[in-house]
């Protein structure tokens, strides 16, 4: 069972590992995980998302891939875009499938295992500094047993010309697999980068992917960060992203959850300086018995910052969605503007949405709004389209596409938007 599998994996790791500060952190993280165990529905943060099925399954955390990943990738959408690609298969970096086309050698786009020795100073300065492990079982688990992941370092004043795809493929052809990717992104002063995390799966066994991202945006930098979840079949996915913004930074984040049995996205922003802009966009369209849970948190710790959040869901069949958006406005964060909306369209009587906006405001001069809607497609646009001779089913599709594309279009790479809109259309 999962807990025993983890214990074995950790013992094996310890036997092989060299003694270093990194190992100490892993040890600490493992004990934290042991203490906490997998979150249960008794935990308020996990009230609607039950991980019991994971606890009762055996997962292999170090296994090879026997599927034809190369052929699979050739048909994937990222193959149609000129970009830097870091590809990981079952948590292991695959140099053959990866491709770095960026010419500037001062920009590091590599894998974490390599960066740990090659760029030790930067690594040690940032690794584990943003994603909290205390009281967070899954972050602890990732920190204890992480496999590999992307390491991106953009020095001061540099712009990464081509987008960086961080591609994770879980191959469960032979056994149930546990993948724990860990990405560390450092964007220095006045630098900018486009990052796209993509998750795929092949094979018919179960997949449990547990990701931690740490993204550090130094002053005046600009980060575009997109996460596209397309793992199919029996796939369980937990993603924790901590974005740490210094003064005068702009971060635009888009999460598209297009597939997965159970997907939990934890997106945390910490605004550590003045004049930051943070944009959080999400789209989920679960079908069957799938569950998508988006937990977001924006910490306004300094004055004069803006955050704007819009999450949209299209619910099919017996699917379940959870949206929990927390905005924390700290005592010093005067003149904060924080907006949050969650809009859901139910296409089935049996689908469920649990939505909970949460504002905690400790400053007195702020503008904060939140709102949530759950309903059917509006009658008026439907009638308008039908009154022009467009049949009901075609009209419905047009309106649903428009609803979903609104989020996809927040991605600033036009050719990627076009490809994603085609994927979205296929799902509806």
């Amino acid at each position, binding site marked *: 069972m999962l807990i025993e599998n983890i214990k074995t994996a950790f013992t094996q790791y310890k036997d092989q590992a060299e003694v270093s500060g990194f190992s100490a952190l892993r040890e600490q993280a493992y004990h934290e995980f042991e203490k906490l165990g997998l979150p249960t529905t008794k935990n308020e943060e996990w009230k609607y998302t039950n991980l019991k099925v994971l606890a009762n399954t055996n997962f292999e955390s170090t296994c090879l891939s026997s599927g034809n990943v190369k052929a699979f990738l050739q048909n994937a959408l990222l193959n149609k875009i000129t970009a830097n690609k870091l590809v990981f298969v079952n948590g292991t970096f695959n140099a053959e499938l990866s491709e770095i086309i960026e010419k500037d050698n001062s920009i590091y786009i590599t894998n974490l295992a390599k960066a740990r020795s090659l760029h030790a100073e930067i690594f040690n300065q940032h690794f584990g500094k943003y994603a909290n492990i205390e009281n967070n079982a899954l972050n602890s688990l990732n920190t204890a047993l992480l496999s590999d992941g992307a390491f991106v370092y953009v020095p001061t004043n540099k712009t990464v010309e081509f987008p960086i795809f961080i591609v994770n493929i879980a191959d469960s052809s032979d056994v149930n697999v546990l993948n724990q990717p860990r990405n560390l992104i450092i964007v220095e002063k006045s630098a900018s980068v486009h990052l796209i995390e993509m998750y795929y799966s092949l094979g018919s066994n179960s997949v449990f992917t547990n990701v931690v991202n740490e993204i550090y945006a130094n002053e005046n930098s600009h980060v575009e960060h997109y996460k596209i979840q397309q793992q199919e079949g029996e796939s369980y996915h937990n993603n924790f992203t901590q974005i740490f913004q210094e003064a005068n930074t702009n971060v635009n984040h888009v999460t598209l959850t297009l597939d997965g049995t159970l997907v939990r996205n934890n997106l945390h922003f910490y605004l550590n300086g003045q004049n930051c802009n943070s944009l959080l966009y999400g789209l989920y369209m679960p079908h069957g018995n799938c569950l998508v849970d988006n937990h977001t948190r924006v910490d306004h710790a300094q004055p004069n910052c803006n955050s704007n959040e819009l999450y949209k869901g299209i619910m099919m069949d017996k699917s379940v969605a959870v949206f929990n958006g927390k905005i924390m406005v700290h005592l010093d964060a005067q003149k904060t503007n924080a907006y949050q909306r969650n809009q859901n369209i139910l296409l089935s009587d049996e689908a469920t949405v649990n939505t909970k906006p949460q504002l905690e405001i400790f400053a007195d001069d702020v503008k904060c709004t939140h709102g949530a809607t759950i309903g059917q497609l509006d009658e*008026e*646009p439907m*009638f*308008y*389209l*039908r*009154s*022009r*001779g*467009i*049949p*009901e089913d*075609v*009209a419905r599709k*047009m*309106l649903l*596409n*428009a*609803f979903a*594309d*609104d989020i996809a279009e927040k991605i600033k790479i036009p050719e990627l938007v076009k490809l994603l809109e085609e994927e979205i259309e296929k799902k509806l």
Partner: protein
Amino acid sequence: MLSIKDLKAEIEGKKILNGLSLEVKAGEVHAIMGPNGAGKSTLSSVLAGRAEYEVTSGSVTYEGKNLLDMSPEDRAREGLFLAFQYPIEIPGVSTTNFLKTAVNEKRKYLGLDPMEATDFLKMMREKMDYVEMDKSLISRSLNEGFSGGEKKRNEVFQMAMLEPKLCIMDETDSGLDIDALRLVSNGVNKLRNKDNAFLVITHYQRLLDYIVPDFVHVLYKGRIVKSGDKELAKELEVKGYDWIKQEVEANS
């Protein structure tokens, strides 16, 4: 073309149309006037097929077919067109894509192949000139951020694209300044021919200076209480509706 007989309709239990009858032939323009609350918008809603209105008795025959049995989309594909009083904004649906879908769905219904992309664009350019519509508007989302006048011009532009047989114009003049009114009316006049008909619903006579009707009907309390030619509209403009109301009350 259109034959309405003793039509009664209600919404949420409230009776709005109380035995309305009207005959419209090809090539004719009928104006329906009347005070607020007379049932003018209900008439256009019932004809276009809004589900929230319930027809309790009477009949509507359009081109020999029972109109009330048809879905809104079938009515449109049979050649009925409603120019909305308040055209709504539909973010994310481009005007071009919307019209291409509408035109090709109608063609499919009539057993025709979809239009070639180049022919379609040519047609769009031609028809935009009818209402002097700004070319940039069609690449935007449907009516999104359009001014009141642009929305009404877009309605007439759509009318030109879909080439309907029966056009119902629901208070198209409301909210239009004089320049926009002239543009919209010019567009409509260019579309008039011996094979199509117009039902122009309006509160004011002003619009009828530009779109000159063959018949003018006064709707009051859900029925047509008076019919005449364009002179009747002018009389209403001068005298208001009170004298008609009194006439009706005296006769009942």
